[in-house]
């Protein structure tokens, strides 16, 4: 009896242990009917019938080919995959082992648990992590798989982000290549325009000379007039090329400050949000500004829109125009400027931003919001206008840009008259151009207009002529020539012989000083090609100035 009692107690202990280790534990009696079951059966599947036959409850998916409960005893220890007949998505994986039930010989234990390959199915099956006791590596495996999936998702996202950055980078590189290409195209176009202008100049000059020999009634007169018209048309095409290559001369002219800034205000106001206010104040003493109207608009539209972008929550932009006398940033002598300040109440800039502000492609804006050329363009335009630009900014304190543009009238008033200037006498033109087909007709045009002409093919020859006693009243010179350029010649002549009126002519406006229009009062620039009358009128104007 005691022996039987021990065996019964041992069986009960075995059952308790198995139920703890395998929440989905069950036994199969020798007749195939289900016996004891683990607790989780009752909560997970309350409908389970303890008296049911194993074959009615389960289909054996593995080992393949087993008929049912009758075969279980032949495969003790094999890995079984059981599928619940009333829930085909619910599978159990484990093995059958002989049970030690003293009252039911031939009974088998099922030591196993739910078979999952994805954590996602756990909740769907009504299971939880607690159904995988800590000794069960399947729980660990499922968690590891979840972590791995999450890591893969992160890696996928990082890859997408990286691809996007590479795309943006490649976009930027493309833009840089495009700009470089445009610069090359511009240089090429500028060079072509230069050569074409020289040819056009020759055609136009010869046509003008021929026209001067004919009466308007002559049938050739009309044909020559057609040549002149065609030449003018061709000249407008070369001007187009120069515009593309950004070598088109800026047109410096006296501008009405009030009207110009009113125009700028009209242009930018529609682009400002309702919470951004624009104030324009022009000091009463500033009425005129010598500048190029398009450049002026481009400069201040850029600055105002930059200020707008620095105030995402709104604020105030103030444009103040006043007159100032001060030393420019290049350290040269103080001179008069029209100072235009653009002040915003925006986010301001840190030191790094201020340092790199005018560099091409430096931007603090999000990718795609700006390539960082706005302020570098402003810088270039201000330089072209012979001005200067300054910035004052602190993080959180807003930004002030100050643009100093030359106040030509005031500077002239400040400049004392130069002493000891030697003026050469006589209506004598010193003509310098390396292109014979340009120089020859110009000689004739000048002679026909009553000028005496000394004609040479280089700057060096011109200097030599002057050193050998040529007395010229005016220097008419091409700009781009082999050896010394026209501007270098003018400087050398002025240094050696004193101030001399100079008329520069060129088909290739690549000298920034000439393009800016900021020439001394005794210098003028005439772009090729030009009409004979235009040349004569300009020379006379210079001589009478």
């Amino acid at each position, binding site marked *: 009896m005691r022996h039987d009692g021990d065996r019964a107690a041992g069986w009960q202990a075995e059952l308790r242990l198995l139920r703890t280790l395998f929440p989905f534990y069950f036994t199969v009696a020798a007749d195939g009917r289900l016996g004891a079951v683990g607790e989780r059966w009752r909560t997970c599947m309350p409908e389970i019938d303890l008296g049911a036959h194993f074959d009615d409850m389960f289909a054996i998916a593995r080992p393949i080919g087993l008929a049912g409960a009758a075969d279980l005893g032949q495969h003790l220890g094999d890995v079984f995959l059981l599928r619940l007949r009333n829930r085909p998505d619910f599978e159990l994986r484990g093995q059958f082992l002989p049970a030690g039930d003293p009252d039911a010989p031939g009974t088998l234990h099922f030591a196993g648990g739910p078979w999952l390959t*994805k*954590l*996602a199915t*756990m*909740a769907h099956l009504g*299971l*939880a*992590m*607690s159904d995988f006791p*800590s000794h069960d590596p399947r*729980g*660990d495996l*499922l*968690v*590891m798989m*979840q*972590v*791995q*999936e*999450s*890591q893969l*998702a*992160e890696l996928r996202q*990082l890859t997408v*982000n990286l691809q996007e950055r590479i795309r943006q980078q490649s976009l930027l590189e493309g833009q840089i290549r495009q700009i470089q290409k445009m610069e090359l195209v511009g240089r090429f176009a500028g060079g072509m325009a230069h050569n074409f202008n020289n040819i056009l100049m020759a055609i136009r000059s010869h046509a003008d000379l021929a026209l001067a020999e004919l009466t308007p009634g002559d049938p050739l007169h009309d044909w020559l007039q057609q040549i002149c018209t065609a030449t003018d048309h061709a000249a407008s095409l070369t001007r187009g090329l120069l515009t593309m290559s950004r070598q088109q001369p800026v047109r410096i002219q006296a501008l009405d400050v009030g009207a110009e800034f009113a125009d700028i205000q009209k242009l930018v106001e529609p682009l400002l949000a309702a919470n951004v206010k624009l104030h324009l104040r022009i000091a009463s003493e500033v009425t005129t500004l010598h500048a190029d109207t398009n450049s002026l608009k481009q400069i201040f539209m850029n600055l105002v829109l930059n200020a707008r972008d620095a105030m995402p929550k709104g604020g105030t932009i103030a444009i103040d125009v006043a007159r100032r006398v001060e030393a420019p940033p290049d350290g040269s002598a103080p001179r008069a400027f029209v100072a235009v300040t653009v002040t915003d109440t925006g986010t301001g800039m840190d030191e790094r931003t201020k340092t790199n502000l005018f560099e091409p492609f430096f931007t603090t804006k999000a990718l795609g919001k700006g390539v960082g050329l706005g302020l570098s363009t402003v810088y270039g335009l201000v330089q072209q206008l012979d001005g200067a630009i300054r910035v004052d900014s602190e993080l959180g304190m807003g930004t002030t840009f100050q643009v100093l543009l030359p106040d030509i009238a005031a500077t002239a008033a400040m400049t004392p008259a130069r002493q000891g200037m030697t003026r050469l006498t006589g209506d004598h033109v010193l003509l310098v151009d390396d292109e014979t087909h340009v120089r020859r007709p110009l000689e004739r045009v000048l002679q026909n207009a009553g000028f005496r002409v000394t004609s040479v093919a280089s700057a060096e020859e011109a200097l030599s002529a002057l050193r050998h006693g040529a007395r010229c009243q005016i220097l008419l010179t091409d700009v781009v020539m082999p050896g010394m350029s026209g501007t270098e010649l003018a400087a050398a002549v002025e240094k050696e012989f004193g101030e001399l009126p100079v008329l520069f002519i060129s088909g290739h406006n690549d000298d920034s000083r000439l393009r800016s229009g900021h020439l001394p009062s005794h210098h003028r620039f005439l772009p090729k090609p030009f009409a004979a009358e235009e040349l004569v009128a300009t020379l006379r104007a210079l001589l009478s100035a």
Partner: protein
Amino acid sequence: MYGLINQAVEDLCRTKFGNAVWDRIRSDAGLPDEPFLRMEKYPDEITYKLVGAACKVLNLSAEAVLKEFGRFWTVYSAEAGYGELLHSVGRTLPEFLKNLDQMHTRIQLAFTHLQPPSFTVSDETPNSCVVHYYSERPGLAPLVIGMLEGLSVRFRLEIDVQHVPVQGARPHDTFHIRVRPAAANKATV
């Protein structure tokens, strides 16, 4: 702490307060503008700096920031790819809390440097329980309160949480959870 936590702080700041605020917090904490990697181990100091900077920039107490983060964490961790794992931890709030240690232990297989806190549950009734929280990191009790509140939303409960520090041989924090009567009929603890 793992980058996942710092990522969550970043996500909370961006979602709730905007990108500009996050940039200020990050900058104030002296951190570079680089993404956190979930599986990368970062010094705890970074997380503490972020919380400190968030307090300063948002003008909130550390307690408020930690509570907010705790609430957000339950949502974020699910969105960060651990939703199924959270789902498997428990079908009720007590079951979830009781299984947290087991989940953390299993997660340590992947997050090998994880120093997770420990949770146990006692005094369980249909409408209340006491959560015991043990951690090597001091001062994070408000975060647990936020987390419990976040979990209550997950389990569609309305709860009150009372924080009671426990002294003695094994000092720790306890959180007395009580389901509000109005909500008690929707679900039980």
